[in-house]
């Protein structure tokens, strides 16, 4: 009897095993080759394959350049929509999808769901989705719509941030939660919107909330456990800012003890801003990360005398310890909310008459294109790439901007025609660089503003601004432009003017194409050399996200972009703001009052391929 039972049990198990093997394996299409071995888990191994898109900025240098050239200037005219996917959230989509091991990962706007799509099967069906438990009150402290700029991949995990200040790591294959860490407090006005960056065994995350008087920071978490490893504040004493014996700024302007305290009126550094919601670059040879900090709070500069360090500052830090190597403050005592969170593109350039220089290039919010020696922080050049009245140039000897006394904001007085406006000549939306053309493709804004300083009351968890503002189009009337900048010869080569601010990222490819989207819903491919529009496609909603490109398992090159207008300039649509108040949306609505005539809300991923 016992033997019989045992025997039948063994048989049943065997049959069950047979069944499982037969029925659950998906039918494969003949042209698709599945990975037979387990997929690569380390970031270094997936980075080596240029056919993927494994971090939002594409690579540590933040080039957003892909060496794929199957789609090129000759055939891009035939590009077609292949399939679409909806995140179901009608708010601004700013994220870059990731493509790792034939899976696409998308993070939506708040409540920040994560979708994994199987690229080995037609139409990219859902592999798994993850819905984080989030605090809905976070929406009340998100300055600029409920955006999220994307996830990161490393160690077999997908890591992303939620608006309510969590960093969450998921198993990339199953979507199972591996760890989560809460890093901030909405009752202090903190949120997180940036795409984390994974470097070695660390996840780098910074906070947002510069409009709420938060105290900005960047921290490194252990990729294995989510435990904080180091945290660098951007205001306050040197020990908090991880400024120690290694700190060697290039300019005397940035040298001295505890400047994060001394350059503020007493205690105001505690509500001083200097957040970090933008991009981080990494140079593996120097072992340094580069990133800039946000605006000081409140906006009305008369209320915070001093240089307000380390707001609007570029930092170079040792990635292992967080120790600052050097810093350079773009805007001491920032007058215009010119956050310095834009991407630093790391390039090794043969400059005219010189040797190879390791530089970083930045299209700064203040309208200047900076070239900075990334080993020591020396500003090699700072050339205007936009119309500027707010300053009269950058003094390369001292590093300070040359102020324009006519445009200094004052309390109770309206100062007119300050250009660029608060969102800058370029906001967070990242540029792309093609080594084939030597051009940096910059999605820019052409906006000016009227600014009246007001009293500001600090109430934790509420806005801390002190300004009445309205924006409008700068000279020419076009509110945006995709411009190509020759980084070596330091000049604009061409530009494509856009009706609305160009608020999507750009991608450059070895097919000599530049892809970007517009707020009125066009997804475009330009000739990377001439700037001619070679192809465009009208999507369902305005585009403010970051396009990506990859090689599918079928060997074909794909291009994808998320639509869904919103963000700061698109809040008039995503948040139903009323343009009869020119100051709505912190002044942006007055420049965008016609946007509702061109686009509605959206939430769609578009994937394009050649037929």
């Amino acid at each position, binding site marked *: 009897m016992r033997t019989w039972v045992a025997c039948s049990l063994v048989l049943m198990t065997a049959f069950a095993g047979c069944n499982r093997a037969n029925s659950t394996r998906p039918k494969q299409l003949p042209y698709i080759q599945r990975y037979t071995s387990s997929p690569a888990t380390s970031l270094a191994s997936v980075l080596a394959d240029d056919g993927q898109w494994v971090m939002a900025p594409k690579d540590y240098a933040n080039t957003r350049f892909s060496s794929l050239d199957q789609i090129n200037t000759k055939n891009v005219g035939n590009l077609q929509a292949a399939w679409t996917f909806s995140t179901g959230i009608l708010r601004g989509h700013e994220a870059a999808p990731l493509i790792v091991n034939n899976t696409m990962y998308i993070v939506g706007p708040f409540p920040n769901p994560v979708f994994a799509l199987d690229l080995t099967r037609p139409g990219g069906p859902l592999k798994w989705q993850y819905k984080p438990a989030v605090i809905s009150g976070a929406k009340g402290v998100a300055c600029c719509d409920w955006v999220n700029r994307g996830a990161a991949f490393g160690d077999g995990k997908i890591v992303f941030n939620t608006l309510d200040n969590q960093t969450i790591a998921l198993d990339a294959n199953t979507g199972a939660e591996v760890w989560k860490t809460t890093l901030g407090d909405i009752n202090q006005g903190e949120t997180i919107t940036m795409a984390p960056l994974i470097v070695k065994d660390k996840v780098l995350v910074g906070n947002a909330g510069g409009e709420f008087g938060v105290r900005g920071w960047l921290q490194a978490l252990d990729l294995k456990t989510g435990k904080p490893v180091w945290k660098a504040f951007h205001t306050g004493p040197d020990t908090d800012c991880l400024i120690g014996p290694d700190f060697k700024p290039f300019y005397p302007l940035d040298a001295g003890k505890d400047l994060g305290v001394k350059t503020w009126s007493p205690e105001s550094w505690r509500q001083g801003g200097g957040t970090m919601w933008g991009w981080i670059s990494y140079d593996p040879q120097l072992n340094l990360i580069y990133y800039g900090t946000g605006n000081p709070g409140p906006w009305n500069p008369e209320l915070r005398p001093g240089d307000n360090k380390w707001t609007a500052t570029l930092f170079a830090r040792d990635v292992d310890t967080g120790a600052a190597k050097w810093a350079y403050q773009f805007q001491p005592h920032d007058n215009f909310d010119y956050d310095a969170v834009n991407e630093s593109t790391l390039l090794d350039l043969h400059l005219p008459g010189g040797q190879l220089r390791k530089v970083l290039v930045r299209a700064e919010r203040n309208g200047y294109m900076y070239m900075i020696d990334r080993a020591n922080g020396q500003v090699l050049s700072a050339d205007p790439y936009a119309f500027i009245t707010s300053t009269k140039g950058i003094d390369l000897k001292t590093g300070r901007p040359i102020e324009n006394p006519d445009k200094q904001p004052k309390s109770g007085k309206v100062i007119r025609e300050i250009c660029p406006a608060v969102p800058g000549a370029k906001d967070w939306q990242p540029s792309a660089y093609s080594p084939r053309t030597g051009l940096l493709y910059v999605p820019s804004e052409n906006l000016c503003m009227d600014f009246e300083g007001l009293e500001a009351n600090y109430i934790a968890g509420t806005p801390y601004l002190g300004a009445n503002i309205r924006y409008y189009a700068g000279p020419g009337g076009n509110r945006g432009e995709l411009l190509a900048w020759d980084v070596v010869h330091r000049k604009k080569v061409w530009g494509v003017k856009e009706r609305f601010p160009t608020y999507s990222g750009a991608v450059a490819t070895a097919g000599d194409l530049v892809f970007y989207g517009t707020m009125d819903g066009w997804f475009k491919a330009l000739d990377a050399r001439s700037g001619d529009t070679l192809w465009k496609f009208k999507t369902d909603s305005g585009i403010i996200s970051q396009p990506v490109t990859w090689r599918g398992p079928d060997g074909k090159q794909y291009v994808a972009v998320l639509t869904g207008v919103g963000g700061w300039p698109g809040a008039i649509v995503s948040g139903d703001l009323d343009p009869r108040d020119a100051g*709505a949306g912190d002044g942006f609505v007055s420049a965008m009052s016609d946007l509702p005539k061109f686009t509605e809300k959206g939430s769609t991923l578009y994937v394009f391929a050649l037929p």
Partner: protein
Amino acid sequence: MRNALLLASCLLAAAACRREQREIVHSPAASHASGGIVRLSELQPGQPTPEVEVRNASEEKAYDINEGKRLFAAYNCSGCHSHGGGGIGPALMDNYWVYGSHPENIHDTIVEGRPNGMPSFGGKIPDYQIWEIVAYVRSLSGLVNPTVAPSRDDHMQVKVAEQSKKEESTEEKKKP
């Protein structure tokens, strides 16, 4: 006829008097003590029961509405709702009301907060100030008498003065 004229001018004088009224000691401007239920939905099962209207005394006083306007900026309401056009929070100058347009609805929204990001100010600021803010918020969409609504202010002009704001719809929308 003469009597009618006399009566009319008496009424006008009384109204004007209230417009200029300032209270030093604040009696509860309005409250839910009237026993009514504050409904956020137009749907109710069975026979409709009459709604108890809450009268916000601040809505009749120019001083109170101006105070509401000052407090709207001072408590950083304007940081999210701007001058009525919205931003982080919804626009308040249109006729779309997520949580109801009646004074008691707006009062409760400020006190309790709302799950889409509206902070709860209950216990943080005096109740009479909340009623002043309620009166000002309603003036943004033309729901108070223009003779008591604030006129053009001294700051950068970004919208028409509250007293020039026309009510957009007599049918106030209440959407959950």
